[in-house]
């Protein structure tokens, strides 16, 4: 009971800051301090949002975005973890891939769009690649750090007991470096979502990013903000899912 109360009060406390921002925004809008064309009042935006959800128009673009995110983020995580572990455990692979990764990493991905268009076409392949290119590096780097940072005694022990390489990776290396890997995945989550929206703006045919840009260009800023609210809810939902998953996977962590 007291635990529940505590959780409830924590949640209420968490609502205070967003709520006060909305209140200030609403008041400033109502008093005419803010230009209503570029920044409409939240109450009006909420009405648009209700319409959007009410007539079901929200679902198809939202699903579109979620699908793109799932594929891009999923690929980024898998690729990042695989390469990260490979580079951390194999000196030859490290030497082979380190210069290339360090060369690609600092390139602004949006500058690569013409090249990607040229080789991957205008559409899904390009969009997924943009997302993966942006989201893979945090995962890769923290996986690498996580694995390299493992207690050498742990690996020595495995070697002493002649545990096979594959098993060492799956039973020792991955679980032990999981907190670091998850930290990278958390950074990649936020980044990935932003990049999905950007990719949809650049090359999309549908999706939340596509809608936002479309409405922005025709100056329907109120509806645009309704979609941004949708995006915020999506981001919040994904973060919460991530927290739950992390607490399951690494119960000794995340007690913040």
């Amino acid at each position, binding site marked *: 009971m007291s635990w529940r109360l505590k959780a409830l009060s924590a949640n209420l406390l968490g609502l205070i*800051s967003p709520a*006060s*921002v909305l209140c*200030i925004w609403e008041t400033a809008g109502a008093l005419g301090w803010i*230009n209503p*064309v*570029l920044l409409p009042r939240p109450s009006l935006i909420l009405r648009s949002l209700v319409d959007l959800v009410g007539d079901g128009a929200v679902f198809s673009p939202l699903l579109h975005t979620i699908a793109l995110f799932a594929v891009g983020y999923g690929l980024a995580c898998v690729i990042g973890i695989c390469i990260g572990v490979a580079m951390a455990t194999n000196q030859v692979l490290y030497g082979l891939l380190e210069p290339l990764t360090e060369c690609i990493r600092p390139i602004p991905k949006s500058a690569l769009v*013409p090249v990607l*268009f*040229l080789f991957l*076409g*205008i*559409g899904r392949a390009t969009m997924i690649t943009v997302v993966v290119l942006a989201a893979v590096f945090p995962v890769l780097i923290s996986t690498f750090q996580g694995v390299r940072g493992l207690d050498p005694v742990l690996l020595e022990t495995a070697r002493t007991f002649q545990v096979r390489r594959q098993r060492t990776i799956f039973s020792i290396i991955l679980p032990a470096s999981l907190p670091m890997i998850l930290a990278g995945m958390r950074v990649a989550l936020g980044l990935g979502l932003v990049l999905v929206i950007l990719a949809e703006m650049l*090359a999309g*045919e549908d999706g939340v990013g596509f809608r936002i840009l*479309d409405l*922005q*260009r*025709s*100056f*329907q*800023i109120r509806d645009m903000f309704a979609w941004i609210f949708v995006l915020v809810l999506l981001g919040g939902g994904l973060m919460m899912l991530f927290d739950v998953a992390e607490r399951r996977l690494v119960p000794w962590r995340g007690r913040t």
Partner: protein
Amino acid sequence: MFVAMRLVLVLLLVHLGVAARAAEPSTLRISVIPTSVLAPLYAALANGYFKDEGLNVELAPTAGGAIGIPGLVGGSYDIAFSNNVSALSAVAQGIDVQLLAPFPDGAADETAVIARKGEGIKTGRDLNGKVVAVNTNKNVIWLYVREWIRQTGGDLSKITFREVAFPQMLDALKQKQIDAAFEINVFVIAAGKDPALEIVSFPYREVQPQVQPSQFVATRKFIQGNKDKIDRFLRALNRGGEWFDANIGKDELFALVAGFTKLPVDVVRKMNFQPVAKKLELAELDKTMALMKREGLLKADVDTKAMIYTP
């Protein structure tokens, strides 16, 4: 607390002198996209016509038009380079802008639909079932290519429109990701030299030959508060236009355009420069509005007459 931090941050930035913009009495800040259409403006600047009017004109070029009109509303720009469709959409959404001056409208003669050679694409009818690239959905290029397709027997419900940036269109065409593209001057010239591509049509010429797609806009509020400044600006711009008209086909104009667009001079030489339109035509704006209504970009009529500024 967090809000306070943000506020501190903003104040800090302002303090760094990056946000503050003192509105000097003789300064006009103009948002532009460095395209050849703006040659009269650059000519007026280069020849000191603005100085002659006692104006200090600051150009703020951006790569795309996304921040022009929001920048006007936010007070960051005094005047912005924009197009008729954006201006009409803005007015329809309650952003009170007025059109100031037209530009040399080669639009009808140098903006073209491109397709792969030998595929027999000649009219809108030939595009049924195909993919057509436009730079921006629901904007001016999209609007006029759709109307051209409709008028030449195409069925819009059977055609897919894809948003592709101008520089990428020709590659996309050659790789068969799209079947036709509505391109602007520079790339129409490039397509003309490419043996794999051909020019299909000049949609503006067929749909609305006197169309005035690009112009300067400013908010009505700014215009009313700065009528004298605007009139001086337009006088100087007009002189820039006269210089432009007088130099069509001459090296001076090519050098000027190559200078601000950074294009190679030999490409600029191939551009089809047309004289500056004398004034904004209400009838042309009305035609654009009618097209927008038909496509659902406007729900109701806009007072186009009030949109045109007359000195």
